[in-house]
Structure formats: structure tokens, C-alpha cells
């Protein structure tokens, strides 16, 4: 007769870092679970950062593939979600810059392609106006506002995601809000006349 076996139970719901470690170790299912957990959030960040569905889709796909490939580079210094956010935001900014170049070449300001499927209520118009104004902000300010004000991310985490100092995140938030307020002010006239100043 043997004594009771002592098993170390596998957690039923492993945390993100465990899943990433399993993926690196060759677990074929682990990254899929990470994708399922975070895809909606990452898509929302991408959509709000780019303001364009196609760009957001491409960026978030690129980001998840990049994370899949480079999971072994994750050192655990920050939460997996922070790491994912960083990859997604960088992918979005890359896409936006490429888009900006092509838009300039076309001599066109481009059109915003903002989501409205879930905006079927009285604030739809307001939401669209705000998002259009948000899309006109410099990318640094827009990214900070998306993470901090729209997604409620702490400044310290946003600083890691954006690769800048916490003070920079805060100043970008402050300046971005002021620029937004100026654009949304009824007396501001056309939005073209109220393009935000400063690139950070």
C-alpha cells in the first residue's frame, strides 16, 4: 500500500505569465488562451489608437504574431498585459506612420473609419465627434489619453507601455485634454483651424 500521492495541482486558470511560459516551453494551446483572454481589450486599444478599423485589425494581428514569436523575450519585468499593450501600441503607431506617409503622398487627409456598431444611443454623435477630435491629436498625446483616460490604465503602467517617463505620460494627458477641449469648443470653428500643437 502506498501513501497518498502528493500532487501539485495545476491551477485551473493559470495566470498570463504561466501561459506565456508554457507557450515558450512548447505548449501549443497556451498562446491561444492568451489571445482569447486579451483580444477584445487589445482590439479596443488598437481601434482607439488608430481610429480606423482596417489599420486596427492589421496592427492587432501583427502585434499578436509578434508576441507569439518573441515570447521568449518577455522577462517578467512587467505584467504580460503591459507587454502586450506595448506591442499593440507600437504596431498601431507603426501603421499610423506608414498611413500618414501614404496619405501625404495622396494629398488627402484621409477618412476616419470609426466604429459605431455599439453606439446606438443618444450619445452616438458626441462619441463620433470626440473620436474624430482624438484622432487629430499628435500620436503621443492620443496614445496617452487612450490608455489612461479611456482604458483607465495607471500612469506608471502607461509609461511602460509607451516607453516614456511617467511625467511625460502625465504631461501628454494634460496637453492632449487641452487640445481636445479646444477642438470641441463650439466657438472653435472648423477643426482645421484648431489643429493641436506639439508632437508629444
Amino acid at each position, binding site marked *: 500500500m502506498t501513501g497518498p500521492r502528493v500532487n501539485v495541482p495545476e491551477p485551473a486558470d493559470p495566470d498570463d505569465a504561466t501561459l506565456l511560459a508554457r507557450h515558450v516551453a512548447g505548449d*501549443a494551446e497556451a*498562446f*491561444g488562451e492568451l*489571445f482569447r483572454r486579451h*483580444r*477584445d481589450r*487589445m*482590439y479596443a486599444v488598437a*481601434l482607439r489608437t488608430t481610429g480606423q478599423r482596417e489599420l486596427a*485589425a492589421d496592427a*492587432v*494581428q*501583427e502585434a*499578436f*504574431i*509578434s508576441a*507569439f*514569436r*518573441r515570447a*521568449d*523575450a518577455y*522577462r517578467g519585468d512587467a505584467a504580460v498585459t503591459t507587454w502586450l499593450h*506595448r*506591442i499593440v501600441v*507600437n504596431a498601431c503607431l*507603426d501603421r499610423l*506612420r*506608414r498611413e500618414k*506617409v501614404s496619405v501625404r503622398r495622396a494629398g488627402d487627409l484621409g477618412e476616419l473609419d470609426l*466604429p459605431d*456598431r*455599439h*453606439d446606438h*444611443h443618444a*450619445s452616438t454623435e458626441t*462619441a463620433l465627434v*470626440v*473620436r474624430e477630435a482624438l484622432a487629430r491629436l499628435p*500620436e503621443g498625446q492620443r496614445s496617452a*489619453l487612450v490608455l*489612461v*483616460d*479611456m482604458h483607465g490604465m495607471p*500612469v506608471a503602467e502607461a509609461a511602460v507601455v509607451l*516607453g*516614456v517617463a511617467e*511625467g511625460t*505620460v*502625465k*504631461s501628454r*494627458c*494634460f496637453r492632449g*485634454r*487641452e487640445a*481636445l*477641449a*479646444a477642438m*470641441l469648443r463650439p466657438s472653435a470653428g472648423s477643426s482645421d483651424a484648431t489643429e493641436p500643437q506639439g*508632437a*508629444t
Partner: protein
Amino acid sequence: MSHPHDETDPVEHDPTGMRALLGSLPEPGPMPADLVARIEAALAAEARALQDPAAGPERRPAAPDDVVVPLRRRSRWQLVAVAASVLAVLGLGGVVLQTMGDGGVTASLGLAGGSSDSAGSGAAPQTSPEDGSALLADDDDLGVVVLESGRSYASADLSIQVVRGLPWDRTGRDATDAPTASPTAKAQVEAQDGGGPTASLGVLATAAGARACAEGLDVPDADTVVVDLATVDGMPAAVLVATAESGRRTVWAVQRDCTRAAAHVLTGPLVVG
């Protein structure tokens, strides 16, 4: 109207009301099903590639459209200072740098120390280490310096090799400390878009390619990047050193086909300063 604020203000401090407005916007909703399917298919292809590289997705080299031009320009002195510092990090004591009136940086690299045997390959450097190595590209808009030292790095000792010679001032040398160039010892600065002698060295031989690789490693745009085309563990590879404005340096060894989409990391990231 501007609302005075400073870094001591909590981020919640918002006289404009925009924080509350932004926070009240409806969520965009879940990821569309077609996109979920698309990404899951792409991830499945990646997983197959891990099992059987021949079955994996095609990984094309960086295309011109992949080039990202950072919006933040770097000062010439910043690039010179960081480049000089990193060249010291890489142990290239014989390098001389000179700022040129037209905004370029010229250099001549004579190896003053360290191993200099170069593994032979189809991507062999144009000049042997004994003859001095070449500065292949510099671009202060991109914040990139690319050189070909022909040094032999070992992945197991990469941080030691890089740390050796590091000034440890954490900010890079002051620009005024950058060695002056010998007018007769200027190295070539190749065209950015390939062609010429650098073409055989791969995408990393151009500033744009090096920056794209750095992007693939999640190096912030504000960081200055120095790439040394060399060998790592006897194979043609590259050592990429990213220096942040704070002076913090991070090092990777990557394959020479490193791109934004596929960085092909051999070793790293290693924080060395």
C-alpha cells in the same frame, strides 16, 4: 484657454472635463469574428512553423513600405555622442568619428582590441578587420549608425564583451569627447536603400533596415541604435545596441535578416548600462 499644470498634479486633475468625457465613451465592442478567425489562422500557421519551419508562413524581407520614419528627430550631437560611446562599448577603440558640415558622420574603424577573426561566408565584410572596418550608414533622422566590424562575438559572453570598454557614464560620452577624424581616414557611407557593396550584407546594412529591426525588438523610436555587422558564435549576425536618452543600453544579437516582423533574436535583450 490653457489650464496650468505640472508633473506634481495627479493625472486625475482635469479642469477641461475631457478625462470624464473620454471615459464615458462606449467600448468599441469585441474583436470582430472575422478578425478573430484571421488571427487564429495566422497563429496556427506560426505554430506549424515551430514544428516544421518549411510549413510556416512566408517571411518576406523588409520592404520599403516597412520603413518607419520616427517623428522625433535626434540632434546630430546626440547621435555622435551616443555612437562614439557605443563604439567604445563595442571595443572599437580605433574608430574615429567626425561630424561633417553637411550633416553626415564619417568614421574610420581600425580595431584596437578584441578578437578580429572573421568567419568566412557569403556575407563576408567588404574590408577585413585587419584593414579596418567600415561605417556603412548613419542617419540622424532615424537615429541609427551601422558599422561592420567583423568582430567575433560569443552569445554566452555577449554582455561581457559589450560591457568591456563601456565608459559607464550612463549618458554616453559628451559630444566634445568624440574623437576627431583623420581627414584621410574616412570610411564609406553607403546609400540607404541597398545596392552597392552593402547589398550583400542584408537588410541591416542600411539605416532603415537597422531601425526596422530595432522596431521589431520594441526599441523605442527615441533610442539611438548602433548595429555592428559581425559574427556571433561563428555565424554572420549583428549586434544591436539601443541607447536610451537616460543612457540605459540594451543589447541583442540578431540574425542579419532581422526585420520588424521577425526580429530573429539570437541573444538578448541584455541590459548593459
